[in-house]
């Protein structure tokens, strides 16, 4: 219920903001004769009062129809999202897995050996990967791995090979951030009395790390994970742009620039639904990892 209200508020807000933006979907470099503009507007119901446009949109939405795209005239918004979402989701899932595995292992290692040379080196790397924007690292990776070494394709979608470079580029800053969070959590946790107790009982180190330290040390990562997963799964504008991946990330910017009203609305809906959903999942995961939160 709460979710439906949130989404309705978002739809109304975005719908209003879009109509306030200067220019319209049919503005181009060339001028349209008035009769042609009238024909176009009639075809998309833009000649109706804005209130009836709003209710027409809501009515279609309830039936699961996001409407025709203004810019991609041969597709409906549903078709565009259905075609692009798997690409973005695959890229996002791979990056998420990569970021988590890399971030967790680096973080645990660093947290267990704080101050060691390797820890310093790894944290330096983590900081660097957070600081370097993907708009720099992604083209660099293309230059090295696609153009000089010819290991990976430079762009497009032609199977799993096309996803390796993009997901690495996308995962790096997230991996760095996770590594730092986990490392801090581990260092803090390592000296807690219950860990000292566990150690005193003679539990093997592996068990201490995985059963006692990690579940607590990972909590800060979790709150970061909800929005991160939503952002990764709905595609990265920069990465899709650099690697020519046909995901939905690019629609965010393009649709807004093209005043493609229905596509912007569709994208906002997908994104906000995912954010609301992932935040809910994160709350569930919290309770599962930290039994103290169960009652709350």
């Amino acid at each position, binding site marked *: 219920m709460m979710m439906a209200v949130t989404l309705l508020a978002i739809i109304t807000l975005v719908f209003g903001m879009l109509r306030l933006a200067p220019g319209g979907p049919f503005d181009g470099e060339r001028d349209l004769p008035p009769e042609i503009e009238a024909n176009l507007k009639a075809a998309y119901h833009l000649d109706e009062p804005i209130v009836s446009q709003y209710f027409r949109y809501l009515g279609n939405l309830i039936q699961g129809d996001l409407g025709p795209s203004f810019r991609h005239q041969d597709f409906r918004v549903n078709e565009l999202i259905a075609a692009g979402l798997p690409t973005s989701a695959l890229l996002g899932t791979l990056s998420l897995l990569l970021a988590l595995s890399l971030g967790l292992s680096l973080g645990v290692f660093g947290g267990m050996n704080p101050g060691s040379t390797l820890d310093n080196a790894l944290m330096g790397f983590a900081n660097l990967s957070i600081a370097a924007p993907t708009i720099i690292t992604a083209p660099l990776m293309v230059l090295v791995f*696609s153009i000089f070494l010819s290991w990976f394709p430079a762009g497009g979608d032609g199977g799993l090979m096309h996803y390796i470079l993009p997901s690495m580029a996308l995962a790096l800053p997230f991996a760095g951030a996770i590594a730092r969070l986990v490392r801090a959590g581990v260092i803090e946790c390592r000296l807690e009395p219950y860990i000292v107790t566990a150690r005193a009982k003679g539990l093997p180190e592996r068990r201490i790390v995985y059963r006692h330290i990690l579940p607590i040390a990972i909590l800060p990562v979790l709150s970061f994970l909800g929005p991160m997963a939503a952002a990764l799964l709905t595609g990265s504008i920069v990465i899709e742009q650099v690697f020519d991946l*046909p995901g939905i990330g690019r629609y965010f910017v393009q649709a807004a*620039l093209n005043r493609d009203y229905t596509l912007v609305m569709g994208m906002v809906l997908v994104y906000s639904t995912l954010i609301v959903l992932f935040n809910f999942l994160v709350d569930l995961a919290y309770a599962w990892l930290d039994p103290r939160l169960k009652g709350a």
Partner: protein
Amino acid sequence: MFSCFKGLNAFLYQIGLGLVLLAIALNASSDVLHLGNDGEPSTLDPHRYNLRLEETLLNDLFMGLTTFTAAGQIAPGAAESWTQSEDGKTWTFKLRTDGRWSDGEPVTASDFVYSMRRLLTPSTAASLAYFLYMIENAEAINRGELPPEALGVTAEDPLTLRIRLAYPYPYLLERLLYPTAFPVPRHVIERVGKAWTKAEHWVSNGAYKLAEWRPQAYVEMVANPFFHAPAPIKTVRHHALASEQSGYNRFRSGELAAIPSFPASELTNMQQDRPKELRLAPLLSIMYLVFNTQKPPFHDPRVRKALGLVIQQQTITQRVLRNGSQPSLSITPSLIRDYQPVPLPHADLSQANRVGKARDLLAQAGYNQDHPLRVTLKHVNSLEGKKINLAIAAMWRQLGVETTLAQSELRAHFADLRQGSFEVAWAGWVGENNPEHYLSLLRSDIGNVNYGRYRNSAFDDRMAAARRQADATSRGELLRQAEQIMVADYPVVPLYMLASRRLVNASLQGWQDNVRNMHQSRYLFWSDAP
């Protein structure tokens, strides 16, 4: 430690080698021509198209009455011959006897009648419907004032098409090259409606037919088995490039055989490293500055002339842009066939004389050091736009003019121009191979595409007289007179003509640079040498 790294190296090397072999295997197994296209098409319905990148695809899929050769010259297409009446108002086209749709159905004159009526029917909402407004009753039909059946296009017999024009139009054969005049498959559209552009229903009469369309990824086409001249390359995949840079990367990694452009900053590198693959060609186009002639002080021709005098077109192209663009001193591009453009009146003056004269003009208009002229110059927010803006502001500074720079996003920019909310602005036009196309932008009855609201009845009269003239030579002469009258008023300052910069794999043959910057895949073939 050392040995560990050595092992790692060998490991990485093996992975790399494996991947290379895999890539080679994948490439060898497919006989597909991979081409880069400027972006994602909005539609593959030729009557709804709007963009050049769509034109590229539609030229492969459809065949109009006329078409163009690899060198860009007009040639017979679906029509094998044509005749024109004495008054230039009736054209008769004889269709090819072997014209076929990709499902084997014959292409008939009534297909063209249906298609042109469809283009002009208001509910089609064709944004370029005005391309065929020279046909009798076309404009009234598009306004909804007459039924589509009133259009001056008739099928005399299955292979004879007659087009009656509202006024003589000697450039008709060229106008028919555009997708707006392409035939669409009536027998499919009447059956499946709007879904006819989906691959599963696709039928067209060009060298290729649609096989698959993945939004934002590619449009794949396969040779039309019924086309009269089978294309050497059977499968073509037009990739929608997200940016110049990604296309450039994919060309360099060998994934694409040709790309429509690449970052201008790489031009010098390409000239040195890949001269055989670089295709730098002038493009029929004009970029210009437009003055808002309704807004003081730009209603004063002396102010416009002063500002126009000190702009150095050569400096802008050679020193600022350096992207292959050519300076232009006339609003009609010098590339136009059979026409001698009229340059700005000051073209022969020396640079020093120009500045002196400009100062005098500004002084006469009442501007001096104590009372400087203030100008807001508008441009589209691109890197090139910013560079040009700064250069022009510097050129004006030598007259004591204070320039404020304003940039906005492309759509907002042109919306402002149409509404006349600007003082001086950059504008551009990529167009056809006839002078009228460019000069019409300054007709007072053309609507708000005459951004500066320029109005000169002597110019308008000559333009109207030209429109009544069927003979191309006398029409050209009238247009020249009109241009002569207009340039003296400085409503616009021409800046430069664009250049197309493409990269084309050296083994891909049949690719000829042309001023249209349009190419059809059916002319391409791989040379035997690897």
